[in-house]
């Protein structure tokens, strides 16, 4: 890897920082409390679809593993349990094994905000207001050519039917789903439902999202993708949405799961999956489960990749354009 100086991006970089300032201005006006957090932690939330960075604390003979946080969730939820109220973190997060590309960087700026006494659709309203705020304040020659007066809302079930010709019955039944995928020409042998599902989602659904003149909100993912989201009463889907502009995924929102038992089960499952995939074996954050036992207030939260968001608002096709110093392969 190399250090690359892109000094000609200085103006873009300043515009990126301006967008960060606008985001913070908006959130603070709305009553969200800013929190700064560590990026090194001795334990993490186990998530099978991502890899982490491992490092070590040393003091004479003492050795202790530390991990760069892939998201601030484990800290913010502890504070929510303490009663901090609606709050946000805007800072660095780290995801290993993501080679740098136009939409990815292993080190990136994440905005994560939580609203108490709210569900995912309340966040959707707040978010749309934030997008409008950014669009009004960013100089007009950058302004998005997209109408921010409303969301184009589509459920995952509707999207699979509309864009991939996969019906509700097939979507939730693993066997039927894989059969249908094979018929469509996908390789399914040796692959799980989750793997094939995300391949079809990225190939056939994503390219249509956020392209109909409005930002798209796609919601209610199958429970296999619930992560830390609360399930819907149907038991098949989770209260999770993602939002898109111009085919690019910009954020991921959940109504937060408060049931510690269910969360612990999901953690154990994810941890097992991580081990099976040969991923870095980090300790599970047991304190997180402990905190949930005290009681997480009803809340919803969203994580947004700030470089991506800024890239879309500034009209670039790659997050590289925002960086004056870049680490490249």
């Amino acid at each position, binding site marked *: 890897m190399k250090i690359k100086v892109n000094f000609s991006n200085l103006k873009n970089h300043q515009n990126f920082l301006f967008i960060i300032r606008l985001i913070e201005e908006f959130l603070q006006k709305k009553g969200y409390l800013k929190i700064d957090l560590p990026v090194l932690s001795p334990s993490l939330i186990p998530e099978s679809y991502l890899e982490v960075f491992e490092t070590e604390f040393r003091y004479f003979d003492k050795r202790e593993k530390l991990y760069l946080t892939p998201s601030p969730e484990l800290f913010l939820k502890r504070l929510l349990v303490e009663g901090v109220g609606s709050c946000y973190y805007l800072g660095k997060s780290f995801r290993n094994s993501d080679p740098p590309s136009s939409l990815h960087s292993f080190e990136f700026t994440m905005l994560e905000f939580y609203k108490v006494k709210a569900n995912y659709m309340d966040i959707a309203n707040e978010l749309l207001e934030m997008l409008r705020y950014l669009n009004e304040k960013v100089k007009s020659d950058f302004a998005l050519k997209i109408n921010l007066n409303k969301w184009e809302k589509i459920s995952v079930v509707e999207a699979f039917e509309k864009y991939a010709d996969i019906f509700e019955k097939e979507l939730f039944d693993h066997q039927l789903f894989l059969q249908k995928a094979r018929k469509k020409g996908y*390789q399914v042998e040796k692959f799980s439902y989750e793997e094939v599902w995300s391949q079809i989602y990225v190939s056939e659904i994503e390219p249509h999202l956020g392209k109909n003149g409005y930002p798209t909100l796609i919601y209610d993912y199958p429970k296999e993708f619930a992560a830390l989201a609360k399930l819907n009463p149907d038991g098949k889907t989770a209260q999770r949405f993602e939002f898109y502009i111009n085919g690019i995924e910009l954020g991921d929102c959940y109504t937060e799961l408060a049931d510690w038992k269910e969360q612990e089960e999901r953690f154990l499952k994810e941890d097992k999956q991580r081990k099976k995939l040969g991923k870095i074996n980090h300790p599970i954050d047991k304190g997180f489960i402990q905190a949930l036992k005290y009681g997480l207030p009803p809340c919803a939260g969203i994580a947004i990749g700030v470089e991506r968001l800024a890239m879309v608002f500034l009209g670039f096709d790659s997050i590289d354009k925002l960086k004056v110093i870049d680490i490249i392969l």
Partner: protein
Amino acid sequence: MKINAGNLKKGDFILYQNEIWQVQKAEFYAPGKGAALMKTKIWNVKTGKNIDITFKSGEEVEIVEVESRLMVFLYKDNENLYFMDEKTFNQYSVPLTAVSGLEKYLKEGEKLYVYIFNDVPLSVRPPLSVRLKVVKAEEAVKGDTVSSAKKPVTLETGAVIMAPLFIKEGDIVIVNPETGEYTGREGK
């Protein structure tokens, strides 16, 4: 040879649905749910068609060993471009359908890389740029000082491209043969 799609890179040739394609773009993509993926843009060497395909990064893809051989471009007719291997003096023909417009910017006698598989020519590797003489250019209209303004000019191969107003007959221009875009003028 089979490799994991996660290791695909630009320039690789793959067998996909029984046809040979060249990878134009390969980007790793972790959607935050399910598996990591490899988003690719692939180019059909026979038809010149581009398509987007997303592979699971752990999915096996068949790599095809395609050779690229330097050859002299001889001439073209309505169906093919004709090349000669200077070492063996063997002649090869590449169908026009495989080069998607590239032929408009090729000069006879030029050396180019031809993609060969099992001694069958598939296509031509587009050069990054070509240098061509302007044979016809209208005088720029006086008073038109818009710096971004362009005019059509005719090149020695017969192709017409849009070039800046200061380009004159006899100038050598640099063109991207894949897009037909003017990228510069050769210094005198």
